[in-house]
């Protein structure tokens, strides 16, 4: 199938098209007004934040950030799984590009936080994990799992909240698997993590080079993803 030129335009994806000759619309189900639920939940969120603030301010801030993160995730339909899966399975790279942009923004943000902490002589914030072959092997296993189960951790949680019942099963086994992993943590620690180096690129390369390198790599990936998304299909 030959695509015409306008299909290559990125913004054409969002334009409205009208289906001609359409049969009658399926009758709408009676819909409940969700506004009262929204108000109750919103007040509940504030009340829980108030309770948490009594214990510690950090907890309350984490709670609010968590809620906001969930809202953004749901409204944007951001999905890490689709970002890695769709280029191969369906040929779409719009979420791949979204993930790359998110990582680029996080690079700048985390860079600023870490640089501020490091220049004051403090410890470098963030989880700097041991790097090695176990990361690649684990990533592939996680990737297979998330494609089959229909979501990574954040995507699963978001869809559980949305009411997609299949993901409730995913969440149950996600928790089960995590607990299993924690149970044998000492074994994995001894086998892989203790011997693996913890690499923090800015400490090795210096801040300007490390940040630039990461952004250049991300930029290159973005261009590749864009080209892949707009490639000609036959």
């Amino acid at each position: 199938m030959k695509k015409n030129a306008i299909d290559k335009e990125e913004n054409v994806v969002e334009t409205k098209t009208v289906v001609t000759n359409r049969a009658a619309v399926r009758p709408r189900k009676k819909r409940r007004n969700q506004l009262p639920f929204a108000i109750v939940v919103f007040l509940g969120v504030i009340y829980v934040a108030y309770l948490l603030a009594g214990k510690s301010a950090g907890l309350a801030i984490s709670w609010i950030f968590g809620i906001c993160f969930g809202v953004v995730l749901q409204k944007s339909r951001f999905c890490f799984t689709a970002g890695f899966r769709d280029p191969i399975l369906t040929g779409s790279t719009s979420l791949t590009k979204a993930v790359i942009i998110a990582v680029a923004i996080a690079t700048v943000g985390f860079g600023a936080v870490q640089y501020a902490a490091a220049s004051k002589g403090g410890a470098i914030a963030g989880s700097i994990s041991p790097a090695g072959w176990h990361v690649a092997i684990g990533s592939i296993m996680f990737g297979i799992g998330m494609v089959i189960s229909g979501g990574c951790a954040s995507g699963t949680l978001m869809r559980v909240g949305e009411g997609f019942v299949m993901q409730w099963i995913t969440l149950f086994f996600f928790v089960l698997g995590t607990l299993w992993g924690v149970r044998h943590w000492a074994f994995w620690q001894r086998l892989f993590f203790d011997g693996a180096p913890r690499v923090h690129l800015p400490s090795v390369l210096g801040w300007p080079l490390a940040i630039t390198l990461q952004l250049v790599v991300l930029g290159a990936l973005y261009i590749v993803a864009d080209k892949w998304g707009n490639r000609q299909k036959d």
Partner: protein
Amino acid sequence: MVEYRLDCLGEACPVPLLKTQKKMAELQVGDILVVEVDHSCAMKNVPEWARKEGYNVEIEETGDGEWDIYIEKTK
């Protein structure tokens, strides 16, 4: 013109899109496929794919969290 329905209720990504892609290949030009989905991501990626292919697309919310996606095979 024939109208087909594709029941993808309860199916998570990427199943609705893969089923739609297969079904659209069988349709004649002018036919319409109605995909029923209740997965919010499918409501996003099925129309995105169809519009990229150049088909006409309309989305109708038929219930809370349930959508009909109308796709007209235009070529």
